[in-house]
């Protein structure tokens, strides 16, 4: 949090055009997909899971949507079928983890490869890119303002954020999620339905991935499978969650942490672009700032026997 505020102050002073309302809108619109994905990933990580297939599901969901809309289906049918396919992918992840009992990291790593491979070769027939025409329903929907000044991607981001907050804070599923992350065996022993909860958590993560996929596809006009191969988006999503303060061992943290983590990454990305720094320099600076952020956090919140538990990375 402190590092984020420090960076915002520094950029406001040194970068012309940073501290303007217009630029705030740019930051919000450019980080919409990142925050939406982070909501799903945050929930998974709080339950002491990890979903490495989120970006693959994101692209697969967008590809499904584009394929059905290119085939001329009606809009309700396209939305319904895409939701069904995406939920099924999340369900498959949850089933592998909860019932086959494969560790989440391995299950989702394998499913990411399977999903990306299947969609690229069976659905896109080897293509890497699917271009969306300007009249594609997703492009039309996400290109407009929901209310004047509030674009559809930013609205989708706010809705996902609020829904995730409500889910975690006020529902049984949310409480089970925290209990699973805190102590999985204890949660299971006291009779919480951890297996169905796991299914729902991964299905929810898949649905957030779909929303993010549609936002990216609509704003760039393409569904791009290279996003899965180069992996940088997935790392950024995990970084947002962990930097925000949700430990990988789960059980703690909430939406405030995701917001802080996302703000840090989004502000840095924006500031470095405004500075016209080269890609290599951007990577270098990102790494340095991340190390500073983690080191500062360790200094102010030193580990003790309570927080330093097995499984924390």
């Amino acid at each position: 949090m402190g590092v984020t505020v420090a960076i915002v102050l520094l950029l406001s002073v040194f970068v012309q055009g940073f501290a303007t309302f217009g630029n705030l809108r740019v930051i919000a619109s450019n980080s919409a997909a990142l925050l939406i994905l982070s909501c799903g990933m945050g929930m998974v990580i709080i339950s002491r899971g990890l979903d490495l297939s989120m970006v693959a599901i994101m692209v697969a969901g967008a590809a499904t949507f584009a394929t059905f809309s290119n085939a001329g289906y009606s809009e309700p049918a396209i939305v319904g079928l895409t939701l069904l396919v995406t939920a099924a992918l999340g369900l498959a992840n949850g089933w592998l983890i909860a019932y086959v009992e494969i560790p989440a990291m391995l299950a989702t790593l394998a499913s990411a490869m399977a999903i990306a491979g299947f969609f690229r070769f069976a659905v896109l027939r080897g293509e890497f890119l699917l271009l969306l025409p300007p009249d594609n329903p997703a492009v039309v929907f996400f290109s407009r303002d929901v209310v004047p000044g509030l674009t559809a991607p930013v609205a989708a981001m706010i809705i996902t954020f609020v829904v995730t907050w409500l889910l975690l804070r006020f529902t049984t599923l949310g409480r089970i999620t925290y209990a699973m992350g805190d102590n999985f065996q204890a949660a299971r022993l006291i009779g919480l339905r951890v297996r169905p909860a796991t299914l729902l958590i991964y299905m929810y993560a898949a649905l957030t991935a779909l929303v993010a996929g549609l936002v990216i596809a609509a704003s760039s006009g393409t569904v791009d499978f290279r996003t899965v191969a180069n992996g940088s988006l997935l790392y950024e999503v995990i970084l947002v969650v962990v930097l925000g303060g949700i430990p990988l061992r789960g059980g703690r943290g909430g939406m405030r942490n995701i917001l802080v983590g996302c703000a840090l990454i989004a502000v840095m990305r924006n500031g470095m672009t405004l500075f016209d720094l080269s890609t290599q320099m951007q990577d270098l600076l990102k790494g340095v700032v991340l190390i500073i952020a983690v080191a500062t956090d360790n200094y102010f919140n030193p580990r003790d026997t309570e927080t330093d538990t097995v499984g924390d990375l």
Partner: protein
Amino acid sequence: MLSRVKSSLVNIAAGIAVCAAFALSTGGAQADSNIAGKKVIFVPIAAGLTLTEAWSRRVKEHADYYGYSFDIRDPAFKMDAMSELLAKAISDKPDVLIVHNPTVQLLARQIKEAESKGIRVVQINLQSNQPSTAYTGANWERIGREIAEDIVKECGAGSGKSGEVSIIPGQLTAADSVMLNQAAFKVFAAHPEIKVVSNQASDWEPEKARQITTTVLQQHPNLCAIFGHWDVHTMGAGKAVKDAGLQGKVIVYATGGGDDKTCQAVEDGILNRVWSYDADGQGRDLADLVDVLLQGGAATDHTMLTIDSPLKIIKLGPGYDKNLCFKL
């Protein structure tokens, strides 16, 4: 010398092309050739791209006609896999190896190794630092220079515009990006009124190009032109221009293989001017070159044979025609 080699090669190629075109038009015919049974391997950056599919399609047609084998090894954008696949391809001892270089340096050592083992290496469209038997593809220096000159004409002195330009390379070390930038900056150096306000790579991704452009437009609302190094990722930048309501004010330049999606983007105003190197035509040049090399053709002074791809400028206006683009 090079031009002589080029012209003689072009003559041979044209002759073969005419024969091949005639034979292919008869449908599934096969030539009684002395190159039947030879082996050709192609290692692209990734199969499944319009570019690589367009090239492979033409070579495959020639391979079927002349009876030589044509094998594609797909690294799917993974650079480590590409080096491994190339090592395997070299150990398979093909007669001709076609290589699509992602950077000027990555495959240089392996190209040298293949040539030293007697394998004739053709570099397609993206050239390595290491010369080989032949290169066919775009003349990136020419494209960079021509686009920069057009930008100077549209945005430079006397145009009444800001002169602000944003460049979006694929990767700063990619062969085409290096040459396009060198050529463009050489032109801009003579025109101080042109200010390059951003030069950030998109990793070839439309979404990254869109995000960069959205941010740059925020800081430079009077931006005059965007020079994207590949039409596919530049479409993301064009989308950002459209979303900012600046279509028509910011001129979006790109280069590309010129398939039907490029023409569609030009018609939609997402891209404004595209220097196309016509991937379909490149496919035929490549196939002709392979045929010639399999028959023993080479430059007499052992320099690299070169075929520059003819360029088409795709933009709306009197000369525009959908047929400037090809369809796979």
